[in-house]
């Protein structure tokens, strides 16, 4: 219950943190992507550099669909999810055959391949310029809300839905088995689970939801930039996931918020602001490996035990 309250509160208050509806929209979009990344990184224990490919695919797919058939409207979004899941199926089929570092390398190679594919078909993707003039589907609330507000509402609703779905997944049989696979892959196999299929399923679900985030991002910008499919996007998503806490869907949302706020605040002061992000990341990995979510848990655990301490001391005192 508290989880949903925090989700709603975050969706409602993000514009105040970030100062504008459009930045808040970007935060929620990346929150979805980082949470989907958590499913792989935190639960399945898979480090994937292909998250940016799924994200970019969603951006391009929504752009191509809506410029070709503007009548599709919101139906374009589930098609993007499907597209992301299909790409994840292709990449996952290759990467889940290998373990450890080899699997990571395959996702990295595939991410590069997808990037250059996007660059090589400018008639579809607009090449280096990206895909411009992506129309936003309308929700039909024009009488009460302007275009920006309407889009933020769409993003906020899908943010709540996506994180709720992901959180539910982690508590489903699928989520438990993902945990088991990460914990002891050999045993999971012997107990009867088809580990490669389980991993592939995680890839597809994560890829589909990441593509949804990418699609919303393109609608937010009204364009699908080439940068949405590059390796840097994969890295940003991974950093948000680690900053926020890779085993908490809410943590991922706060990771996205922290990362984007850092960019907003620091980039006007220092063009090399990403070095600060690097330092923060190293600090978090060393001292708070469970990210912001882990810090929060530690703090609230301390607060809960704090009232006990004086009574303990009284008992011990002679």
């Amino acid at each position, binding site marked *: 219950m508290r989880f949903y309250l925090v989700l709603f509160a975050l969706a409602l208050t993000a514009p105040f943190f970030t100062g504008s509806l459009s930045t808040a929209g970007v935060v929620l979009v990346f929150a979805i992507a980082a949470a989907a990344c958590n499913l792989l990184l935190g639960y399945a224990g898979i480090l994937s550099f292909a998250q940016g490919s799924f994200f970019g695919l969603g951006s391009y797919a929504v752009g191509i669909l809506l410029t070709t058939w503007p009548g599709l409207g919101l139906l374009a979004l589930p098609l993007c999810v499907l597209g992301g899941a299909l790409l994840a199926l292709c990449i996952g089929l290759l990467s889940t055959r290998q373990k450890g570092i080899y699997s990571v390398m395959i996702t990295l190679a595939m991410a590069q391949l997808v990037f250059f594919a996007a660059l090589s078909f400018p008639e579809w993707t607009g090449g280096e310029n990206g895909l411009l003039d992506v129309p936003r589907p309308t929700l039909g609330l024009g009488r009460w809300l302007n275009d920006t507000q309407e889009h933020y509402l769409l993003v906020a609703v899908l943010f709540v839905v996506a994180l709720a779905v992901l959180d*539910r997944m982690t508590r*489903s049989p*699928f989520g*438990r*088995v993902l945990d088991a696979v990460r914990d002891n892959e050999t*045993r*999971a*196999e*012997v107990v009867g689970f088809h580990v490669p*299929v389980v991993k592939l399923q995680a890839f597809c679900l994560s890829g589909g939801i990441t593509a949804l985030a990418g699609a919303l991002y393109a609608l937010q910008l009204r364009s699908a930039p080439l940068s949405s499919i590059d390796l840097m996007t994969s890295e940003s998503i991974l950093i948000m996931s680690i900053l926020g806490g890779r085993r908490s869907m809410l943590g991922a949302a706060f990771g996205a918020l922290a990362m984007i706020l850092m960019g907003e605040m620091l980039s006007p002061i220092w063009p090399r602001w990403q070095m600060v992000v690097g330092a923060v990341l190293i600090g978090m990995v060393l001292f708070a490996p469970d990210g912001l979510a882990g810090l929060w848990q530690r703090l609230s655990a301390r607060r809960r035990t704090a009232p006990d301490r004086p009574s303990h001391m009284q008992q011990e005192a002679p």
Partner: protein
Amino acid sequence: MTACALQTRGLGLDYGAFTAVGAVDLQVMPKTLHALIGPNGAGKTSFFNLISGRYAATRGAVELDGVDITKMPARSRIRHGMARSFQITSLFLERTVRENLELAALGCKAPPLLRFWTDWSTEARRLDGIDGVLQELELAKLADRPVHVLSHGQQRLVEIGMCLVAQPHVLLLDEPLAGLGLADIPRVAELLMRLKSHYTVLLVEHNMRVVMKVSDRVTVMFQGQVIAEGPPAAIREDAEVRRVYLGSQA
């Protein structure tokens, strides 16, 4: 003569030029406890891994209840009624005893694509036999403890429990007594006696006293081959076995 629960015909494994398991014929009768013994390096564990499907056989065949399962992957064998335990305890350490058993119970019947929309706790409640196994192994009191805080002996019991919840008819136990304290050994030996009235058990074990006490039949392996087979009393008297295996103790 009744049909075998488990049978191997000329089953063997080569590691390159080295023959780990020659060509082993083994017949395990239903509802009996069949022990596999032999000095270190005799090929027991390799043979065990061939039966459980962890290694692919170089030659020969494995039959479970008369069905050839030689080519069947390990994860499918559990669905055909064959469960195995590990010599080195292999559990989901972060999870509780109950959750380990639940995962094992789910594993043997879950479809390859797992449900991601239902809640685990409602799903787990539908799995039956967990409480029975907890009772049987006297683990009920520890059910909600994470496995990594349990003693080694208790972990060995969870290891066996994970096989039992799959409701197998053939149980492969790889050194269930390995590393147990003296106090725990009679308890597990007693458990083995109880298990053989419900299951067909193939046991690899080094503890001779227990093997001789609980087994119906004993097969002795040496250098990848079977050198003797028979009831425990006969094996104890077998001159060849004494020479290669019991030599120092005889």
